């Protein structure tokens, strides 16, 4: 095939690919937000004084990290309707992946919190600052710097994991490619193109993280 033939071949599918890629980005952002919320709650829960909360947090992390993401997605999308909770594929997907990633985020946040020397909190409290001011002004800014590399990795995993949602009829990039291939019988070209698009998106993500990391390293 010459280049112009290639172009003619792909061109009709470009808008569809762009749309599917946009959906991947939207899914990723929503899943990350859910996972950070879950992660923060569970990380603090694991350090809680209250036994039940601590045990629930430990169970959550144990269950989520010990079972496949695909099964978790199936439980939420196919299983919950049996219990009277029917969710759209999109909502079920965001929820399932968010809960999944949240367990990993919780462990990352916990390790970040434990890396802050006790003296940082003490010097703040000794000046009369409240616990919440100390958390917000002194502890969390330092935690963010420490966990940024791990959080970036987790975000990249999340982006790639959105492809699992092709199994519950969310027409994101992977399912879109599959539908084209079903009519064109060109799996190599279209799966390769799909891989390149994922690669572009994950590369962009790590570039942003590298920039943030450089900015955060200014005081080290």
């Amino acid at each position: 095939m010459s280049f112009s033939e290639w172009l003619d071949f792909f061109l009709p599918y470009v808008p569809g690919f762009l749309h599917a890629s946009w959906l991947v980005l939207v899914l990723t952002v929503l899943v990350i937000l859910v996972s950070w919320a879950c992660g923060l709650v569970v990380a603090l829960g694991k350090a809680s004084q209250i036994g039940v909360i601590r045990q629930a947090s430990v169970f959550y992390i144990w269950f989520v990290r010990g079972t496949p993401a695909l099964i978790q997605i199936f439980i939420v999308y196919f299983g919950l309707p049996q219990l009277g909770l029917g969710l759209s594929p999109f909502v079920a997907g965001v929820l399932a992946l968010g809960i999944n990633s949240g367990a990993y985020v919780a462990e990352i946040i916990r390790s970040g919190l434990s890396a802050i020397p006790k003296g940082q909190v003490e010097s703040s409290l000794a000046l009369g600052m409240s616990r919440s001011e100390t958390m917000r002004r002194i502890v969390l800014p330092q935690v963010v710097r420490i966990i940024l590399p791990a959080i970036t990795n987790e975000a990249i995993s999340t982006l790639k994991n959105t492809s699992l949602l092709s199994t519950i009829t969310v027409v994101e990039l992977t399912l879109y490619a599959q539908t084209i291939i079903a009519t064109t019988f060109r799996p190599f070209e279209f799966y390769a193109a799909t891989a390149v698009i994922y690669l572009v998106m994950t590369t962009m993500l790590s570039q942003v993280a590298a920039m943030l990391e450089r900015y955060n390293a200014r005081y080290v």
Partner: protein
Amino acid sequence: MAAAPTPSAPTSPAPLLRIRELRKSFGAHEVLKDISLEVHAGEVVSIIGASGSGKSTFLRCINVMEMPDGGLLDFEDAHFDFAPGARGRPTPAQLRALRARIGMVFQSYNLWPHMSVLENVIEAPMRVKGVPRAEAVALAEGLLERIGLADKRGAYPSRLSGGQQQRVAIVRALAMKPRLMLFDEVTSALDPELVGEVLALMASLAKEGMTMLLVTHEIGFAREVSTRTVFFDQGRIAEDGPPREVLYRPASERLQQFLKRVLHEHVAGPTGEAP
């Protein structure tokens, strides 16, 4: 007036800080056993004693970084009773108000690494006392000027030497305009050649009349600068008096042994206390 009279405290009307029968245990280990101490405005009290004698814990009980198990604390308008279930136990808001008036400096400086020197100094006055930013900056600049670090205002703590960091930590506490300053072995983590600049700053504060409590291993400094020396032994105050008296004519054999050991270490080189 006091249930437990403090030996040889200068007799002026009302002490700035009054502590009675303070007790603190960690698990089964009783660290402080009925400590009573009165400190008057302008006094510079050095606290000496072997490692594990409770002197640092005592200092940390004064601003309630450690919650005592019992005893009374009076500081200006704050009156606390630490007995379990007592009505006088401090609320979080009362603790913040107390700590805002008592400065504390730690062995390991504990400057906040993500903030510049200036930001470290203005943070608490702005957050805790609601001082407007311009005013807090002016105050901080004056204090940094005084310690010769005005040109470092924009630098991050990691760019400063240990001695510079510790002096900024002192200034950070001073920016709250405290009525009392607590120094917890503030020169122990410093290289020997940097100890002098920190001690000089503390000496100048003492000369200005700042009320200070300092846990220290610098016997020479305690002798020259403090108005009073307290010797802690096994969770009790074993001796209390003018530094020259306590240090030159120690009454107890424990203090004699302690001084011999510490002064010997001074001659031998390392001033640090064995862990």
